[in-house]
């Protein structure tokens, strides 16, 4: 498909701008001006509309396709929350208004949303307070690690290491390293969970804390999680809960009760806000008593008279981690979702997410190897080891599924499982759509026995076949104009 720049025709414009109604004829001195206009495309409104409509049709999406991307919780995104976020009272609200003197009176509705969303997350996770500011899961992780560092600094603790299971998301070690810690990686045991005795082998007074997803990325809830917490606390370490998998346990367990000191929650996963093709998300961070005084500023507080305001008076705070109060539009959608579901709806969400994952696990376990053959939580991990022996890799199976008009599961993650295929159906999928997926996976297994070579040609029905990723990295072309100039 042509790029917008290749469709450009000199003289076209997609928006009618107002004529100037002020008589200003002067300009800036030439030295402050650009030498030529920016090479943006010149397109009519219909040109632009057709271009982006056609682009959108080259995407799989939750609205159009089953999207069981493990660890990403690609659940359905309710439409009414989009309507709420587009209300002018929210979408046109300037973030600096409440920073004017007595300015909170201009943003009472928005501050109430932030305050109440925080209260909901506290009760769901068992934490004492939240900052709604982190702008993504990884940003929440970084914030959490900064809180951990602030705690140790205040206590005079000399800490050097953060312990992370080998099955963790790459963001965990990257976030801990960004905050200046060294990483100790602990292997999982044959049940798929971090092993207490292996943890004991690496624990020391220099351990700042543990970062863990619970249930972990193998889709298993660690039954010894409270004992792990005790061990980490015995060296004054901090327990960090990566909330990537919170969708499994709402109403069944709370990180705060399990001994976690700090958690981040991915609103774009558990609380149904759209993933946007890769953001914007939101990763609010909750803390227990121990870490509360270190939370970023500003914090939203409720005054005795019932009004809401921004409070900056926390001398131990780690400071500012975002320009404003978080991805407000995302938080608003998540809050609307929580209000609609309520207590029973949230619990049912986790129940059905777990039920659906186990249904897929049980239906595919004869065809695909299970690295951990047990009841799973909200996602199940298979290995394509048997298929690989026939010359068909997890990636090939993924491409086969694309031709079946399904977005493939996550492949090659977690790194601990060879040829991993990680399936997370979420609670919003019906049994029929899961059955179609299961049948396609069985068909792939059968085909891997009959004609493994055929897999290398998949997908056959997409606008493109498999791209040459090596070429992309070797001959870096990331800007249309640079290419033009280079030629």
């Amino acid at each position, binding site marked *: *498909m042509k790029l917008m720049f290749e469709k450009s025709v000199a003289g*076209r414009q*997609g*928006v009618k*701008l107002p004529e*100037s*109604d002020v008589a200003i004829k002067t300009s*800036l001195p030439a030295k*402050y*001006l*650009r030498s030529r*206009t920016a090479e943006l495309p010149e397109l009519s409104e219909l040109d*632009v509309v057709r271009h*982006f409509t056609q682009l*959108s049709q080259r995407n799989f999406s*939750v*609205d159009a396709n089953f*999207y069981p991307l493990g660890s990403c919780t690609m659940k359905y995104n309710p439409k*009414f929350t989009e309507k*709420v976020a587009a209300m002018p009272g929210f979408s046109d*609200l*300037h*973030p*600096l208004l409440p920073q*004017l003197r007595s300015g909170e009176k*201009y943003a009472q509705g928005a501050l109430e949303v932030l305050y109440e969303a925080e209260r909901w997350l506290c*009760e769901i996770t068992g934490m004492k307070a939240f900052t709604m500011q982190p*702008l993504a899961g*990884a940003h929440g992780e970084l914030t959490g690690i*900064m809180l951990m560092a602030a705690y140790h600094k205040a206590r005079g603790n000399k800490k050097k290491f953060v312990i992370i299971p080998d099955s963790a*998301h*790459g963001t965990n070690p*990257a976030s801990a390293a960004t905050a200046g810690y060294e990483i100790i990686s602990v292997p999982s045991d044959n049940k798929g969970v971090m092993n207490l005795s292996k943890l004991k082998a690496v624990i020391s007074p220099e351990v700042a804390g543990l970062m863990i997803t619970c249930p972990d990325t193998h889709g298993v809830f660690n039954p010894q999680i409270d004992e792990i917490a005790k061990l980490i606390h015995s060296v004054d370490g901090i327990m960090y809960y990566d909330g990537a998998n919170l969708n499994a346990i709402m*109403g*069944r367990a709370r990180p705060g009760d399990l001994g976690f000191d700090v958690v981040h929650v991915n609103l774009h996963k558990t609380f149904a806000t759209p*993933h*946007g*093709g*890769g953001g*914007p998300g939101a990763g609010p961070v909750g803390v227990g008593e121990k870490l509360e005084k270190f939370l970023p500023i500003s914090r939203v507080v409720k005054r005795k008279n019932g009004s809401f305001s921004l409070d900056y008076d926390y001398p131990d705070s780690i400071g*500012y981690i*975002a*320009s404003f*109060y*978080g991805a*407000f*539009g995302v938080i608003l959608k998540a809050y*609307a979702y929580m209000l609609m*579901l309520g207590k*029973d709806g949230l619990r049912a969400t986790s129940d059905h997410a*777990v039920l659906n994952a*186990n249904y897929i696990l049980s239906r595919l376990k004869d065809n695909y190897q299970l690295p951990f053959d047990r*009841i799973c939580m909200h996602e199940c991990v298979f290995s394509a080891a048997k298929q690989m022996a026939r010359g068909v890799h997890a990636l090939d199976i993924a491409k086969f599924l694309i031709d079946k008009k399904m*977005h493939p599961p996550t492949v090659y993650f977690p790194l601990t499982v060879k040829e991993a295929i990680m399936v997370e159906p979420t609670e*919003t999928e019906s049994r029929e759509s899961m059955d179609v997926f299961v049948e396609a996976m069985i068909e792939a297994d059968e085909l891997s026995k009959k004609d493994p070579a055929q897999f290398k040609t998949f997908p056959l029905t997409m606008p493109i076949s498999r*791209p*040459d990723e090596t070429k*992309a990295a070797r001959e*870096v072309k*990331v800007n249309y104009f640079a290419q033009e100039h280079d030629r």
Partner: protein
Amino acid sequence: MNPYIANTAEDVEKMLKAIGVPTIDALFADIRPQHAPKSFDLPAGLSEFEVVSQLNRLALKNSTGPIPFLGGGYYDHYVPAACQALISRSEFYTAYTPYQPECSQGTLQALFEFQSNICALTGMDVANASLYEGGTALYEAMMMALRLTGREKVVMDGGVSPICRKLIKSYTHNLDFQFVETDVVHGQVDRQAILKLLDKKVAAVILQNPNFFGAVDDHSDIIEQAHAAGALVIESVYPISLGMLKTPAEMGADIVTGEGQSLGLPLSFGGPYLGFLATRKKNIRQMPGRIVGETVDAEKRRCFVNTLQAREQHIRREKATSNICTNVALCAIQASIFMSLIGREGFRKLARLNFEKAEFAKEEIAKIKGVEVKRSSPTFNEFTVLLPKNANDVIEAMMTRGFAAGFPLGRYYKGMDNYLLVAVTEKRTKDEIVAYAKALGEVLKS
């Protein structure tokens, strides 16, 4: 009843049978009794209609009515209807990171076009596919400069947004390098203050154009000096101004970042916004965040993929250039739709409109007795006004007259309690500006 769960009682029964467990509870056996929640005290759910009504009541409690002359880096620009219509296509907003390029060419090509548009605006060679927002993007740019130079000191001009400066300080106060800020000057950059600090330790000089006070500058001379000292220069820019102003590339900047909210995103009380980052081609391997690159498929057809992933956390883990995973792809696509609708000539005109309206506002405000419009340097669409009394008092009085009058500089700067920062975008009409000046005159008289 939950409209987002399809399973009926019959489905549940069949599925439990297939799994081989008697109840859903049995699936949670690993969560032992001692792990049970100590509390789960939440309200019952509401209907869709009830939630919409409740939130509409909250929306109406926010003051979006007053005519905005408030900016500070975040502006009330017009968002064309086609922009909102296109970004509301759920093929964009309900997809995820394009891990599977064959079924994600829509997102990938749109992000490639976004990168190209950012390069066109800034004049730089390469751009990434977005970062969270302008403030964190500037932090990432600074970390990138430290990696590129292997040096340990960063010089930040006092004219850089205090919102960004405070944020960067929070991120870095535990890290092992020196951070020096020059004093705030009201107009253009204090050359001498920067030059004095340039030594062999300086990794980067961070500048902003127009700066927080709205002052327009040409930083070419500073950049030349910084380069002579082996330092890089990071420019934070306001994209709309680049319809008119000298590009950071023309000035010689090494890394360019900015807040992209003005490119078709609603103000939305501070987010989600759009950080962007562009640089010279030679620096690309130290650039943080997702990058979309062009390649070909097996049939040699042009296509797009996430590229240079060896920089990223999911491959490099603790050795990655940044911990960032998700960016703000949807906001980037929204900005790209905006830029393609406004187009080459439109963007020039849009910038010019912003400039003219602000110049007109300056003239009108300067007529008010006792008010001084600061003219020590040229400005783009925001400027400072010295009032005869505390800016906060004036802002409150103006609110009751239907104007969000501006930002009180005393909030961030000592000794500037009487200064007001006024922003004027293309949306402000001549009548609104005249009425604003009239109201301001009345407020100051009373």
